[in-house]
């Protein structure tokens, strides 16, 4: 939900979604394929720079979002870094239980660090897309793709009604809370079960009502809506091309130099 709020305040929001999608996908691909420290760091910095400095999304929120995958990344990296062996020859630090050595090797450490940076590079590409492109723009893009329309229409309806459901559930929760519904453990259980069953019934009725309302506006099985045309933003295209080219060049150079 926080991403949804941030994206509508992003200064990059009005750039044609296709441009942002292509740019972030290109950078993502280069970052993963290059397999290089430099390129990963470069990608992450470019994306963060765009999100924070150009898009004006508050740095605090962005960094907070970046910490979401951090636990997984660190745990994954640790698993890669630690190696098990019969001797501690290639290990920088180690301990042993019986004849089995557990330790961190040089190769493992580099691989772990590389993976970690690559993850951050890739995650920042995805955050660039999700922090600058509203869902409704993405849906519009997807409608033009080969994905069957009914899938996108369903996704769109789900996206819309998640917020309605969320709203209703928080209103019911407040109403219960105001009447001491969450005072003791026992009443909490009761209130929660009430809330859940109520939400279920409401969603059912909501679906019915929405269908009725759509029918009364001539719904014929397809959700026909206007697709807003977006003007292309020349500065962004130029910037994107330059950065993608630079990343590509860096990837090739670093690939040769092995850093």
């Amino acid at each position, binding site marked *: 939900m926080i991403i*949804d*709020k941030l994206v509508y305040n992003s200064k990059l929001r009005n750039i044609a979604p296709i441009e942002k999608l292509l740019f972030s996908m290109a950078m993502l691909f280069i970052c993963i394929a290059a397999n290089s420290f430099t390129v990963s760091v470069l990608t992450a910095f470019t994306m963060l720079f765009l999100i924070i400095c150009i898009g004006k999304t508050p740095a605090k929120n962005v960094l907070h979002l970046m910490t979401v995958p951090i636990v997984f990344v660190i745990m994954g990296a640790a698993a890669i870094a630690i190696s098990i062996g019969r001797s501690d020859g290639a290990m920088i630090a180690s301990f042993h239980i019986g004849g089995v050595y557990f330790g961190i090797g040089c190769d493992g450490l580099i691989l772990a660090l590389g993976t970690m940076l690559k993850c951050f590079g890739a995650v920042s590409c995805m955050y660039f897309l999700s922090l600058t492109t509203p869902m*409704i723009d993405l849906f519009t893009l997807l409608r033009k793709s080969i994905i069957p329309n009914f899938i996108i229409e369903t996704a769109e309806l789900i996206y*819309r009604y998640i917020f309605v459901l969320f709203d209703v559930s928080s209103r019911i929760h407040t109403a219960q809370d105001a009447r001491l519904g969450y005072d003791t453990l026992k009443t909490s259980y009761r209130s929660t079960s009430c809330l859940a069953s109520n939400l279920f019934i409401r969603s059912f009725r*909501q679906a019915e009502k*929405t269908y009725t*309302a759509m029918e*009364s506006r*001539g719904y014929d099985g397809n959700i026909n*809506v206007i697709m807003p045309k977006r003007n292309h933003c020349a500065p962004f295209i130029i910037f994107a091309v330059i950065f993608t080219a630079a990343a590509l060049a860096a990837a090739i150079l670093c690939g040769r130099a092995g850093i």
Partner: protein
Amino acid sequence: MNIIETENLYYKYDDGSYALSDVSIGFEKGKITTILGANGAGKSTLFLNLNGILKPESGTVKFMGKSIKYTRSEIKNLRRSVGIVFQDPDDQLFSASVLQDVSFGAMNMKLPEDEVMRRVNDALERTGIARLKDNPTHALSFGQKKRAAIAGILVMKPEVIILDEPTAGLDPMGVSSLMHLLKDICQNEGTAIIMSTHDIDVVPIYSDYIYVLDRGRLLTSGTSSEVFKNPDILREHNLRLPRISHLLEILNKCDNLETDFSKATIGGAREEILNLIRSK
């Protein structure tokens, strides 16, 4: 001539209770007709019958003098001509994009895209939410959602527009600008406007005709001065007079002054008061 009317309309919900019994009413082009009634009187049910969403138990709904036969094509035509703005905007706004939601009805009419765009912009402008058109629906306030729902019907330019409690949740300026907009549409485009409201003070200002429902039955009808002439019958059924009429009624009944309390607008009241002063 009535563009849409009902004859001896009965409607029963699944639980067996009659939400409408023997309702025979009509609505004219270029007029604003208000349906009054307490909660549960059957206003929303009536509207769903007028738009062909609900099929009456017995009796008929007539559009342009012809009774509707509930075939697919007839229903489709009826819905194209009779637009309905629902009581709860969340029921109506299905799209996450305001612009796309507003365009839905017009796109379903298979209009050319630039015509749709023109109508959408016009409707957004008239409902005062043009600057919100790129916002997500869930980020709108209740009143803004309500306006978006109204815009979604305006784009279809139907001959009849039904609004279920359009003024609920709007700020005071919003209420008067909406009512101005409705007046404008019905005068310039000859649209028949049918609305329900609990905001009884705006009723006499804008309504050309009033029907009062009570527990599914037609209680009384007439112009605002005819309906407000009998305050007792309204009070018996959980309704009241507009404040201005109420004041004139108190002056009449408690202070024994010669006032006509069927006058319910500020202009009418002013005239009454001036008459009183002059006759002294």
